[in-house]
């Protein structure tokens, strides 16, 4: 049964891929961003990645966040439609390997399209699971230059989009799209260079209320994993503070059939060894 599901998912993805590839000339800016969100935040039915984050201050001092991230997509109604893929529910499970004072700490997120996320944190020193309130638009993810939103994605309807131009970046044809938030956001303007082939964001610039560039994202290396183009090296730099975060996806796998039960209090307290290695 699972294989049939996987097959259906692959077929559905194939259809999406085809649709995107064949009709790109007629895509609206919003559809381009939607495709980008699907490829960047929703790739595969599920994903497991060992992620190394280097948090580097302007003096060059490094801090390390070594973590395993599990992610699972949930398509409402059993069928993965294109719209749902970019707006669907997701569950995240994060296990920290390093630094040593947070080793064994786990973090879980249920992400919903229409309401606030649910987030839980497990603190191993006192064996406590608690819900935490976070402001994902503004809060930094584990002290890095990435906000929670940069990690798990932003809702499509929260911005308006405009195609500024089409240009080449590092030899790759890109749509250059401007996103303006409708409500409150960390940025007042975001400009994204979205690869016409992979639909991954190759570069993004974030502007503040003074219309100054303050944060810049770059996808430094893209690798094909299980047929899914994946940005395995990424960097976010705060141009105002000089602080930057370099992210390496050391191992990434898709469509592993991660069980729903993994995303539970049980495994927060005792991380599943077979999944977090």
């Amino acid at each position, binding site marked *: 049964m699972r294989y049939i599901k996987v097959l259906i998912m692959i077929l559905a993805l194939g259809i999406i891929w085809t649709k995107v590839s064949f009709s790109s000339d007629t895509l609206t800016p919003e559809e381009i961003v939607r495709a980008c969100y699907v490829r960047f935040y929703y790739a595969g039915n599920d994903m497991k990645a060992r992620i190394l984050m280097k948090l580097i201050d302007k003096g060059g001092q490094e801090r390390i966040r070594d973590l395993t991230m599990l992610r699972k997509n949930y398509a409402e109604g059993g069928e993965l439609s294109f719209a749902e893929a970019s707006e669907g529910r997701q569950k995240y499970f994060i296990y920290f390997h390093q630094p*040593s004072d947070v080793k064994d700490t786990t973090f879980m997120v249920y992400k919903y399209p229409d309401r606030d996320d649910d987030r839980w944190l497990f603190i191993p020193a006192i064996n406590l699971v608690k819900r935490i309130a976070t402001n994902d638009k503004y809060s930094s993810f584990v002290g890095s230059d990435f906000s929670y939103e940069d990690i798990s994605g932003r809702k499509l309807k929260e911005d308006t989009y405009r195609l500024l131009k089409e240009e080449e970046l590092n030899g790759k044809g890109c749509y250059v799209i401007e996103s303006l938030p409708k409500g409150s956001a960390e940025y007042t303007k975001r400009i994204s260079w979205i690869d016409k082939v992979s639909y991954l964001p190759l570069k993004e610039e974030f502007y503040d209320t003074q219309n100054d560039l303050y944060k810049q994202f770059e996808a430094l290396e893209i690798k094909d994993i299980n047929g899914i183009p994946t940005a395995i090296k990424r960097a976010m730099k705060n141009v105002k503070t000089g602080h930057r975060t370099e992210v390496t996806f050391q191992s990434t796998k898709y469509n592993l059939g991660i069980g729903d039960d993994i995303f539970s209090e049980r495994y927060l307290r005792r991380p599943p060894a077979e999944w977090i290695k």
Partner: protein
Amino acid sequence: MDKVTYNNRIICFSLLLSFGFWVLSSPVFCAEEPSIRGFLQTNYSARITGVKLPGAKRQELMLGEERGRLEGSYYPSNTKVGFNVKGDVFHDWVEDSWGVALREGYMDYLMDKFDVRIGRQIVTWGVGDLLFINDVFPKDWEAFYSGRPLEYLKQGVDAGKLNLYTDLVSAEFIVIPHFTPDNLPSVGRFFFFDPYPNIMNREVEKPKTTFGNTEYALRIYRSLGGADLSAYAYKGFYRTPAMRADNFISPTTISHFYPELAVYGASLQKSALGGVISAEYGYYDSMDDRNGKNPGIENSQSKFLIGYQKAFQNDLTVGLQYYGELMSQYKEYKAKLPPAFFRKKELHQYITLRVTKLLKYQTVKLSLFTFYSPDEEDFFITPEASINVTDNMLLALGTNIFTGVKDNTSFGQQHKNSNIYVLARYSF
């Protein structure tokens, strides 16, 4: 609790049992490397009220210690068992002594639908922030009030725990054969209110480790409608001592003991109103004094709390809680209360506020926690600043401020204990 006072027989028994499970489980195919880590820390706290504590062991020094922690865990792959041991070695300047403490030491036996944990383990239940209703497990209040890291507020229990997982509900069932009391502010380090200060010799009688004194704790939990729901039950003992006297008006002998207690409760936690809301209830059935006529033993109580936590922009988080304890048989309590005792209100309340602000890419943390009781008119305020100099090096500076209108309320009695503390920790 930093004394090796635990019943060694239980530990030996647990370890033997652990070994038994290990032998019975599947063979080890490709063992994982055991993981080792720990920290070295120095932690000092000094009274800042300028009041000399009679019989103080080290004048203003309430806490002065160097401590090393070693933690090892080993969960061989392809087996169903794992081990975890956390131990501390420390030198205490107040007592001028060395000590070792087993913080935790347990074995896990992991199955598909259940698992078992045997040995010394820390268990934390409930949804309160520093307010405990259904968390009936031992606390170290002395550690908390003298500025030790928060994890030391919790003490381990020597216990067996069964976790059950079903589609409908999950459950934790804990059997504690050996009683561990709370560690309360002690003579020689803290000022505290004593209704009978002239009676020095006091026996403290702990429940003996017998089958009849076994403690049981049960938590059943599941998610429903986006909320985390738990129901709790406990049968055991109060962890703060009660008083026995030949008479309470002018006693000549006093002893302390731990009365029987049963607790039934429930909790809820849910994302709502742009933050997280928490609610918890517990009925404390004071089994040795159900009619409320014994002034040495706590009356039965209903305890409840509601809390709300919200995160704002720029790593600022604010949490508010309201907590109440409603006493049963208040008329009996008032009638039998000895004149030397502080008279509690029928409804004892706390309002707490927590503010946390992170700065400099979350390397600097400014936090504030306050308790305020409107009925006892006292405060406990703990501001703290900490900095992660590197990933491995943490420095913290904070104060514990106690203040109150009266000298015999929960925090008012501690007003001479206000202190400042420092911590430096190197983790490896």
